[in-house]
């Protein structure tokens, strides 16, 4: 898993593990912006994201000893961040509320390919970010893990506590929710069939 915008700083990690405060500061400076952005995408409010970023770095101090240096630090850091954000959402029962919608076996209708293509073409990044905030916790988290953190399906399954086979379904449902949000209720997904 490659993490955009982040530099691997193996040496700083090793020094931080040895208790070097400067190395710790280095790690924070390098990774805090990306982790904040991750939290900003995953959590409902800016304040939540700020709090979560600080908590993740405080947690990191305790967990750094568990980090396997043979693996990517940034990938591991995202795992910690994902678990933390998911815990927050789960505690707030947002997930539970939204999950009831998911659990309902409402079939997803097949989109009209040309309409979908048109919608995607029209929308800007900013509009997508705005629409993301309207999604349920799991849908948002799934999209963030996949398209921000570039996590594999296995990693997403692990982070969300779902079976690997359902990750595609979770992502598809999330996309449908996003399209509905982008369209402002008149769901494209419910639009037509080809």
């Amino acid at each position: 898993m490659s993490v955009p915008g982040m530099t691997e700083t193996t040496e700083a990690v090793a020094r931080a593990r040895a208790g070097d405060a400067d190395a710790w500061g280095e790690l924070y400076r390098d990774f805090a912006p990306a982790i904040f952005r991750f939290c900003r995408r995953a959590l409902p409010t800016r304040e939540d994201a700020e709090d979560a970023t600080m908590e993740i770095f405080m947690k990191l101090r305790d967990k750094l000893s568990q980090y396997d240096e043979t693996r990517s630090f940034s990938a591991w850091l995202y795992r910690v961040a994902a678990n933390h954000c998911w815990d927050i959402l789960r505690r707030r029962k947002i997930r539970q509320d939204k999950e009831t919608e998911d659990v309902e076996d409402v079939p997803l209708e097949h989109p009209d390919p040309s309409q979908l293509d048109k919608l995607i073409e029209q929308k800007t990044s900013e509009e997508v970010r705005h629409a993301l905030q309207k999604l349920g916790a799991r849908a948002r988290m799934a999209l963030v893990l996949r398209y921000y953190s570039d996590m594999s399906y296995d990693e997403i399954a692990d982070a969300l506590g779902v079976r690997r086979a359902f990750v595609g379904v979770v992502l598809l449902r999330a996309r449908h929710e996003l399209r509905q949000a982008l369209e402002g209720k008149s769901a494209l997904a419910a639009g037509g069939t080809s």
Partner: protein
Amino acid sequence: MSEPANPVSPEGPGGTLDHLDEITCLLYAERQLDRARAQAVSAHAQDCAACRTLLKALERESRLLTRAMLEEDEPLPSRLAEFQERARKSHQWISGLIFGLAATGVYALYTNFVEPWQQRLEQAGFGGTSLLSLLVFQGAFWKGWQSVITLLEVLAMLTVAGFGLVIFRRRLRRGSALALVLAGLCAALVLPPPAGATEFRKAQTAEVKQEETIKGDIYLSGERVRVEGTVDGDVYVLGKDIDIDGHVTGDVIGGCQSMRIRGRVDGNLRSAGNTGIISGSVGKNVTWFGDSVTVDSAGKVAGTVSMFGGNLAIDGQVGRDILFFGHEVGVNGAVLGSIWERGDSLIIASTGQVGGRIQFKGEQQANVSPGAKLASPVEFTQRERRSEYSTGHYYVWRIIWTAAFILLGLVLFLLLPKFASESVAAGERVGAPIGLGVLVFFGVPIAAILACITVVGIPLGLLTLGLWFFAINCAELVVGTVVGNWIFGRTTDVWGQIGRMAAGFVIVRIVYTPIAPLHVIGALVGLGIWMWGIGAISLALYKRLQPKVTGSSMGVPVAATS
């Protein structure tokens, strides 16, 4: 790629070519299909314009999502940018504060609590042992350690252990450390008593018959307990009516409604109960928690009598001192040592004699008959209810204790930051924690005492009582932090929380201090704070123990066909 259903169905049931379903297209676009299926999808897309468009749209959607996510739309908030620097700076003065508070707290604990008790206990004939070893370590589970472990040693060990945990917690998984401590505590509690055969007898009337000789300790439990024979060891008794008519070479330790010692106990008598009558002899000391104790005219206690609660009548002889907290002491016989009483009244009859100092703090002068033989006059101190509130001494100690509590809070926040935050968050709801607090405050000690009725339940009961007592001490800290959060706003930074805890705790103390002397109102407000805090801690604990829900079931999209 294995899907629960078969989402990839390029061919319809009748062998005709349908459109690809969306999940298949997504999995193809995301390179999650196996080679064979991917080839089937690719082949289909070449011939089907609609599916090709869908695949293109999904890929475009993926790119849009990635772009939207990765764009740096807002800078790192200044709060986060300064977080690391602030945390480092705060550590410097906090370290100094820790040492200052630690020194203050230990000094307060020692001078205000430990030292006076040690002096009193030494006066009362317990020299060489400490309060803790007296009350706890002479119990069934630690017998033999009392000369080794003193209260100060225990405090020192706890302090070192606490700071050790703080220092090494980065290297220890918090759960493991706590598990280790609890396991150690449980192991200590359940360790069998060292040496000696131990016998258990439980019956309606549990007894050691006259002709019997028990070698080793014995546990007796029943509505009526009689020891008429000889026990060459300790006797642990639990029952309604207890009669010791025989000879016990060790200690008698128990709980009862009434206990009569007509025989001979060579060791100590330590008991909690309603009535105790000593007509025989006790070779060492008597410690009694309960309503009344009488050493009748034929009775003799060679050591000290310590009593907490009710009335003490000495018609016989006490070889050393009397240490008394309760209602009334009446001396008709002889006390060869001193009397230290904090109670309502002291009566010394004409037949009474006291060989040492008599220190009495009460509401009225001691009633001493002119015929009484006293080595020195009674040193009387008038006890004025709540008078302490008007002295500067009270406020100085109040400040010292506040510092000590803040130190405790600081250690707890560092040791258990997550649980501390959860407790504070639970406390912010006010109503629920107070409701639960009432239940826990009264219910837990009752349950713990009930658990102690059985020998097996004693460790659990003691542990529960200990945790309950500790939670009560932490209650005001939780309330203080909630108040601090209300005033200064919430934060997730541990040091920020500690600052709010300290400030809030001081505010609670400042507000409560003038209310405390107001008799009923003071008590009610104090109780309210306890209930609130202990309820918040219980609520946080309850939430921790709730099983976490894991999501696994969800709908599977239906493949679209046309």
